[in-house]
């Protein structure tokens, strides 16, 4: 400090810079010292209370006297979530999917958790929001947001499909029918009028696809008169399906819905949730 502004008899640290610069040796303010001491104590307490010191060689660490772990904190949070869900989950246990659907509050709850379940278990084949996912052969799995259901679109049917899985079979016809016959049939089917050719009934297509060509939900056979195609809907694509069949050995189209009950991956309640969620896609 310059002489001009000497603050009286406050002692300095004794160091002098540049001839006239010195530092006051003032005590820090009391509140500041209190804060410093409190912080130091806090450090020690924190160090002892929480896991802190890694112990070398033992792959272990000092666990803290408080017994705190991140896992237990997470479990505690989870139990809060479970508590909120509990009252709904308890109801779901004894309800049929149709009964859930009739309760708007439960439907709301179920569709919310159904979204996550669908993303984890179904979307790989059926696509996000059930839009379907395609490969070179056409759709891997059917679209779920339209009104065409191979095995039935009632809520019970959807639930049965998820629980038990689905697998229809169509035999390969390349040994049974001539190329010309296949060509005629494929053209008629592509036009949406399978019954326009007598071959459809003569060759036994009606046995599975019905006399009117609209399919049978009990067998999972496709409706051949609408605009929705399970596989490739072009003439070439239809010919391929007729020649090689579905789920009928090498070269055949593959259409297998696994049983989620057999897989054991989903609980009963979860399969109910999914049934409602899927049912709500298009309705």
């Amino acid at each position, binding site marked *: 400090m310059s002489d001009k*502004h000497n603050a009286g008899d406050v002692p300095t640290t004794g160091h002098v810079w540049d001839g006239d610069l010195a530092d006051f040796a003032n005590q820090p303010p009391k509140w500041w010292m209190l804060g410093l001491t409190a912080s130091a104590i806090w450090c020690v307490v924190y160090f002892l209370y929480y896991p802190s010191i890694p112990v070398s060689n033992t792959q272990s660490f000092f666990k803290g006297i408080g017994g705190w772990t991140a896992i237990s904190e997470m479990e505690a949070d989870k139990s809060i979530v479970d508590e909120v869900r509990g009252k709904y989950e308890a109801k779901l246990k004894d309800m049929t999917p149709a009964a859930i659907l009739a309760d708007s509050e439960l439907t709301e709850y179920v569709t919310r958790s159904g979204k996550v379940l669908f993303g984890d278990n179904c979307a790989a084949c059926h696509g996000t*929001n059930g*839009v379907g996912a395609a490969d070179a052969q056409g759709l891997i799995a059917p679209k779920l947001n*339209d*009104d*065409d259901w191979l095995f039935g679109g009632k809520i019970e049917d959807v639930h049965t499909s998820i629980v038990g899985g689905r697998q229809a079979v169509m035999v390969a016809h390349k040994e049974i029918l001539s190329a010309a016959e296949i060509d005629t049939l494929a053209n008629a089917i592509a036009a949406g009028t399978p019954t326009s050719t007598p071959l459809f009934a003569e060759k036994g297509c009606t046995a599975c696809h019905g006399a009117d060509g609209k399919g049978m939900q009990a067998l999972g056979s496709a*409706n051949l008169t*609408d605009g929705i195609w399970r596989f490739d809907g072009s003439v070439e694509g239809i010919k391929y399906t007729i020649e090689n069949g579905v789920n009928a050995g090498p070269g055949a189209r593959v259409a297998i819905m696994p049983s989620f009950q057999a897989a054991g991956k989903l609980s009963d309640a979860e399969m109910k949730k999914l049934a409602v969620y899927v049912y709500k896609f*298009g*309705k």
Partner: protein
Amino acid sequence: MSDANENKEMGTVTTIYHEFEAWQVNRGEKTIHAKRMPGFFRTIKNYTQLALWLPFFLVPYLRWNDKQAILFDIQNRQFHFFDIMVLPQDIWMLSLLLLIAAMTLFAVTSVASRVWCGYFCFQTAWTDWYTWLEDKIEGNPAARRKLDDAPLSLDKIKKKTIKHALWLLLALLTGISFSIWFVDAFEYWNNLIHLNLPKVGWVVLALFGVGTYLLAGFLREQACIWLCPYARIQGVMGDSQTILPTYDVNRGEPRGKLRKGGEAGPPQGDCIDCFQCVQVCPTGVDIRHGQQLGCITCGLCLDACDAIMDKVGKPRGLIRYASLDEMSGKPVHKLYQHPRTLVYVTIILIAMSGIIYGLTHLGAMSLKVLPERQPLFVQMSDGSIQNKYAFKVLNKTDKDIHVKVTAESGIEGQVLIGAENAPLTHHGRGTSFTVFVKVPSKSLKQEITPIHFRVEGVEDPTVFAEYTSNFNGPKP
């Protein structure tokens, strides 16, 4: 400054330090015990403080239709103002309200300096009430200083205890009054008496209670000088046209003690250097140094000086509300010639019309329709195209109502699915439901067709809301 040689030696920067010594700001080293004097501005201040803050204590108890008339129900995200319910969707009006408040502050400050600080601010008001209590219990400033310096005695303990108890009571009442703007007042009292408040309730009460006690009891003018940002903001709102408590230097100087009649001496101004203006000042400044940081323009020094001038038989107004222009003899402009004020007023009017528009166009219902984007549309087995829409209806009435949903797209053969049995919308919160629109693909003339949705109350069709969205289809 006075020492020219020194300036030469040490450079001009040093002058700042000399100025610093002249600054009349109490940096908290002493408690200011301001004298309370009756007067015109004292009376005004009493009334303005009460006019603004008595409602703060009392309005929450006002009932309207069996509910609290004004309730900022943050927990349920609803603001009630008599019959009006404002939901978060309309909160943009709050920004206009804040704009009005800011601009009013600016406008008033540019005309008459820190009116807010001197006559309305809670810091000024609560400090004033706290010191009033202090004055009643411990006596006048001289007695208070004496008591502070006195050794501990039974009398001192008694006085101090009563004072702090009353202060804490007022602080507690302040905390409670603040809280009951946000929760039902009577319910709150009931919970408080049964010590049954939620945790957040206790925290708010403690924060505001302790805050009031510390700020009004101890920090006082230091809050205005060192803590308050508005004090600084308002400082720059004034200009040479702004009127503020001003000491008339030309009339007052050179100041000097009052002489007995006939006593000879050098010529003297009107200021008799009685220090009454300093003694009454709640922030402890000497107004004779001119406009300064510590001055909250409360006008109490005007009262004090006028009383003295009356006594010594000189005209009032040695300290008076005056502008810098007036004091320096420049022409004084009319209020409407003050462009800055006019700009503020214009902004206030625009913001006000915005709020009036908002409040008159709140509507009883609002609707948002979000079309499904994955997929944009679905082809159905009969070849028709279906779109899915998520409806979000906000029912602002005070009861749950069923709504009828209609859609107008101009597409032939359009079918609306999913809202046949009039969905129920809950009042005071959003309700979501899904609606499908299906049209024959041959009626589609373009990929995107505007579609106009409307929801209206089944029983009362005047409660309605509309929203325009798009219907998506394949390339025709």
